[in-house]
């Protein structure tokens, strides 16, 4: 089972470190990262494996939302099935 984490917001030190740190806390394995900085806007799409997640996925979503609020970023964590359903036949 995979999930997709998207992060958008003003660039600052430690975004990847803190997002990946939160993944570690929940035993979520990072599979792929696509990341760019456009002028001072940070954008990242992170694909993660939630097969061995240590808590219910909804808790992980809440925790990521809270991290986003704390850092002033928009962090969106969703199960990959929504993308597969909507964009694949």
């Amino acid at each position, binding site marked *: 089972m995979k999930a997709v984490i998207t992060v958008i917001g003003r660039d600052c030190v430690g975004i990847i470190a803190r997002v990946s740190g939160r993944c570690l806390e929940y035993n979520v394995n990072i599979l792929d990262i696509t990341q760019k900085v456009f002028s001072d806007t940070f954008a990242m799409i992170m694909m993660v494996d939630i097969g061995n997640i240590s808590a219910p996925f909804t808790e992980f979503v809440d925790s990521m939302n809270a991290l986003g609020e704390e850092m002033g970023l928009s962090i969106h964590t969703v199960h990959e099935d929504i993308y597969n*359903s909507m964009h694949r036949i």
Partner: protein
Amino acid sequence: MIDAYDILETISMVREEHLDIRTVTMGISLLDCAADSVSALCDRIYDKITRRAERLVKTCDDIAKEYGVPIINKRVSVTPVSLVAASCGAKDYVPVARALDKAAAAVGVNFIGGFSALVHKGYTQSDRILIDSIPESLAGTERVCSSVNVATTKSGTNMDAVRRMGEILLETARLTRDKDSIGCAKLVVFANIPEDNPFMAGAFHGVGEPECAINVGVSGPGVVRSALARAKDCDLSQAAELIKRTAFKITRAGQLVAREASRRLGVPFGIVDLSLAPTPQVGDSVAHILEELGLEVCGCCGTTACLALLNDAVKKGGLMASSHVGGLSGAFIPVSEDAGMISAAQSGALCLSKLEAMTAVCSVGLDMIALPGDTPADVLSAIIADEMAIGVVNHKTTAVRVIPAYGKKAGDRVNFGGLLGEAPVMDVHPGSPARFIARGGRIPAPLQSLRN
């Protein structure tokens, strides 16, 4: 690997274009709740609904969080109360409505549908009791929705019921006059009512349905409008293609939610209703899609054609995205619940007769239209009769949910708040259909009914 463009497109659909799942509705059969006293009946109904739907809201909230798509409404529909209550011996069914309301509050759903009767060919004693109980039931409850099917293509139109429903509408409006006659916003008169509709106020759980089922209604007018805006001046073949592609994506989200809710609740998946359901929020309007197609204002010449194109493309796109399609499936045009319709009606561009024409090519009917409070009952009945004729002859569902707002006249406003929105009170044709309505009887089934 998922494409980054697809990810960003989905996120922008949800965040900027109001993509959501409009409703997850659990249909529950109450046939086994029948009892020989009204108190036993109410206890059984309350117990069954609270047992079956106990986890509905929590499960839907979890799914919404995990998939990042909001599920706006969680609702329950039940077997028509006129069937379930037939043997209870009560002289009115208001206590049953209260039991439904209490059960809905206990499980945390905002509406419960099924205070209903199917009288397209005639009344049973229980149907009469139910219909007579509608005004007081809707005035005395918060969440209960009522529907009455008065016509089908197969059996024609029960004009005695049509006449009675005009009176019931006026009485419901009077009893809820302190809230702009809001009771009428929870009452729908149907032709060809579907048994698996997840949308309120017309949802009920048909007798051909299983013990329990999950039905899902999708939405997304804002997503369709944005896609058309991006395509600029493409021709109408391309516009239809674009709407189909967008409807496919929206419906797939609905199918995923339906499948997950069904699996987690251990309840069979019923249908996905392919509908474009607007809300009064800016950017979530069906009227604005029609205007994006090139109309100066919704209601001008060309509106019916644009709506027909939209409705057809939504169905074609959605059909392939879901394993079972049902309910109402089409674009909704509820005046008070659609920012574009509200402003078109306010400016005088959209009138009752144009709305009636529009209902011939979309779902569902004359929906959430405020009328003057002094509209006579026979005029309301005649409005219902016209709409039923469109449904019966065209083999489609049509419905009437109009609000004869007590004490208001044309040009005034009613405000229901929330999803039910607000609307200007519209003018009604002054001619009297009194003699026609007083005739009663049945309008025979049309030739189209003989298909065997």
